[in-house]
């Protein structure tokens, strides 16, 4: 739980959004601490983007509110906008302008004093390693460079909170890893609180201090990734086996969770090194055994009964299209 001595930079109170009959966000109460990297994780359509939209004052809450850096998102949207930076899911750079011009435009829109502007722009360009490409038209940038420039733009006016909506969407795996490095580095350098959404669970694990898992518009788990994984029971044992004696396995005292996927059993258990022989003696005809540490995705499966990656393939229209647009614009 949140330590009372730490300061909450964001506090939502029963934040709710309904679109017609669809309840996109159902009364979220959430405190985010100053200086942390907080990840909002969940499948597509879970309400991540809508939540971020409300916090950035782009979407009006149906009910409830939130306070960001002392400003109410419903009553003082102007002040909230000044104290947050946003990087959208889809790229929003002005591709007719150069990298530097994009930043100049942004600094004017956010009222960055002109005597500080050039110094600040140089500083932030340095941070994202784009100084030598700053005066090129951004149309010529690669996907990764564009993302970095957007990160720089989001931080230019020294916001208290930086929101990143799926910051690595549409990037290739290598660029994704580098982008996360930049995000970490910038959050540290600028001492900014970062709130991000992603459905790449593994990536979130490595970057986030705390994560909130969101499903059907509700936060269903909230803690440090390590603690969430520990709560799974320590280890995951994966068995490939014909006709598994499910009931027997479930009855074992050290087993906390069993899930069957296409003839494969995923068993969450404590101290696998001690209990594995016992488990194997009770399950006949095991073809294959694998042990691993649980991932956030396992946590998600336990909590929702579904695999976040299954959801992706079913409901991928939005992000595949977005990714397609990203690459298309690069050409």
């Amino acid at each position: 739980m949140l330590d009372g001595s730490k300061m909450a930079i964001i506090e939502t109170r029963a934040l709710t959004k309904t679109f017609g009959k669809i309840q996109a966000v159902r009364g979220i109460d959430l405190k985010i601490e100053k200086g942390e990297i907080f990840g909002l994780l969940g499948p597509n359509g879970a309400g991540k983007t809508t939540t971020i939209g409300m916090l950035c004052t782009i979407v009006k809450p149906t009910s409830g509110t939130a306070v960001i850096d002392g400003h109410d998102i419903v009553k003082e949207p102007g002040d909230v906008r000044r104290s947050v930076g946003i990087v959208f899911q889809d790229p929003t750079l002005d591709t007719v302008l150069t990298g530097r011009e994009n930043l100049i435009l942004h600094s004017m829109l956010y009222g960055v004093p002109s005597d500080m502007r050039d110094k600040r722009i140089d500083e932030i360009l340095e941070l994202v390693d784009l100084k030598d490409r700053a005066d090129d038209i951004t149309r010529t940038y690669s996907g990764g460079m564009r993302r970095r420039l957007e990160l720089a733009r989001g931080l230019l006016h020294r916001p208290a909170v930086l929101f990143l909506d799926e910051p690595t969407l549409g990037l290739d795996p290598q660029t994704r890893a580098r982008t996360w490095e930049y995000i970490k580095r910038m959050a540290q350098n600028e001492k900014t609180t970062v709130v991000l959404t992603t459905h790449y669970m593994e990536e979130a694990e490595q970057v986030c201090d705390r994560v909130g898992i969101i499903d059907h518009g509700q936060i269903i788990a909230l803690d440090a990734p390590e603690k969430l994984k520990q709560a799974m029971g320590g280890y995951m044992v994966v068995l490939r086996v014909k006709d598994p004696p499910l009931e027997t396995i479930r009855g074992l005292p050290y087993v906390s969770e069993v899930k069957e996927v296409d003839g494969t059993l995923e068993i969450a258990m404590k101290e696998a090194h001690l209990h594995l022989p016992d488990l194997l003696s009770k399950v006949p005809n095991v073809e294959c055994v694998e042990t691993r540490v649980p991932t956030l995705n396992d946590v998600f499966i336990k909590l929702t009964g579904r695999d976040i990656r299954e959801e992706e393939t079913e409901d991928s229209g939005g992000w595949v299209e977005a990714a397609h647009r990203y690459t298309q614009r690069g050409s």
Partner: protein
Amino acid sequence: MPGGRFRKELLGTYAVWWRELKVFQREKSRVVSSVASPLMWLFLFGGGVGSAISLGGGSYQSFIYPGVLVMAVLFSSVFFGLYIVWDRKLDVLKAVLVAPVSRVSIFFGKVLGGCTDVMIQAVLLSCFAVLFPGINLWMIPVALGICFITSIAMVSLGLAIGSMFESLEGFQVISTFLVFPLFFLSGALYPVGDNLPGWLQALVRLNPLTYSVDGVRGALLGLNTFPIWADVGAITFFGVLMILLGTWLFSRMK
């Protein structure tokens, strides 16, 4: 601090204007084509028709020169405004719209950007006035002033329509049923006196652009149907209406 806030809004307007100027600088070919098409009207159309008829005691080309100037202003302005549909499609506007600057300030930045664009074209076109006999070159600044008011009105109209559309499919419809009628019914190519049939006369008088053409023609050739102050008044009134409509629709735009 309301003073500081007002300055920030002005800076926001300036930022959007500055962006439009950068775009204009990079897309110079657009200037060439937007000047080329009115020149074709003047020389290819005007030259042909002018060989058969003369109007107002002077050449037909001199007569349509003010009309073609206003036509260039009309087309460039409305299409500049409509271009916002494209900006939204490419999400270029998204980052601008979440900035702590009011929609009204952003709207005025766009209008100023469009007007600058259009006025550069108008100034280029006004250089060709020396080729046509009967045009009072000293009155060109007055003509450009009327063009400027017209441009504000028409960019606002374009932005107003553009903020209602989400796709570019409406473009053809708008140009067929709005821009071309405005042009043909403005008296750009023919005099709007009592010789017109009643129905056409009525439509022409309802068209705000008629007063722009009449004003510019009055200034340059002295061939105005209405007093110039009335022309300026009518087009200014229309401009104020369009700014109100445009800021309202722009503020509601998602």
